[in-house]
């Protein structure tokens, strides 16, 4: 139903792409993959939610934990390709105070380079 579909490193940015419902399970999968890369020395993460058009607050709360973890290592979490309702939800929750949102992966990578 929902999963991480692709993880790759572009320059110094770890790009994690997802598919489906961003719920607790998918949030934990993102966090697990991010942790592996944090352990490998990466600090900048881009989550591409192009193929995830629905979220719940539990999944989003796990991303708050990731934001917090990245702050501790002077890292950064950004998003791209958000469905309008996901962007609105992140705004209501305040995630966008801590994470930049880009319209596309290409624009995010260019800005982060």
């Amino acid at each position, binding site marked *: 139903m929902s999963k991480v579909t692709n993880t790759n490193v572009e320059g110094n940015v770890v790009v994690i792409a997802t598919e489906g*419902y961003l*719920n607790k399970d998918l949030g934990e999968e993102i966090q697990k993959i991010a942790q592996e890369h944090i352990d490998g020395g990466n600090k900048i993460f881009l989550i591409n939610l192009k193929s995830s058009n629905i979220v719940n607050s539990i999944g989003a709360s796990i991303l708050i934990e990731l934001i917090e973890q990245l702050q501790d290592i002077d890292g950064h979490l950004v998003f791209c390709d958000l469905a309008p*309702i996901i962007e609105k939800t992140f705004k209501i929750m305040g995630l966008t105070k801590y994470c930049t949102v880009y319209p596309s992966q290409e624009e995010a990578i260019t800005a982060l380079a």
Partner: protein
Amino acid sequence: MSKTPTVELKLPVLKNMELVATQTSEVVSKHIGLSDDKSAEISMALIEACINAFEHSETKLEIYIHFMISDDELTIKVIDKGKGFDASKIKIPEIDNKINTSERKRGWGIMLIKELMDSVDFESNDKGTTLTMVKKKEKNE
């Protein structure tokens, strides 16, 4: 007096069953003529309402969802037979208080529902909770 057309769902307390409710809300929203943005907001609010009913009510029974259709608004009731709660004791979450503190990261559901819907009301006691939320149709929709 005509009866309000109502779609009724009964959901078991199982993983991801809230998505069944969102599929129904999408069809009902389209029937009323609500915009795609409003339909998505209703789905998001409904997800949070279902999760609250599943988790916080601690009910092992089903939850019930009524979609009450009128020309100019959609009223949704999410009903559980759980332990109830005191709405006055709910803290409004603030992300600045959650980042780099020991405060739990969760607890966003009611705030999201209130932000996404036009009106929200709770009736709760030790026999259960009924959450009623309304989305109004704009005149130009």
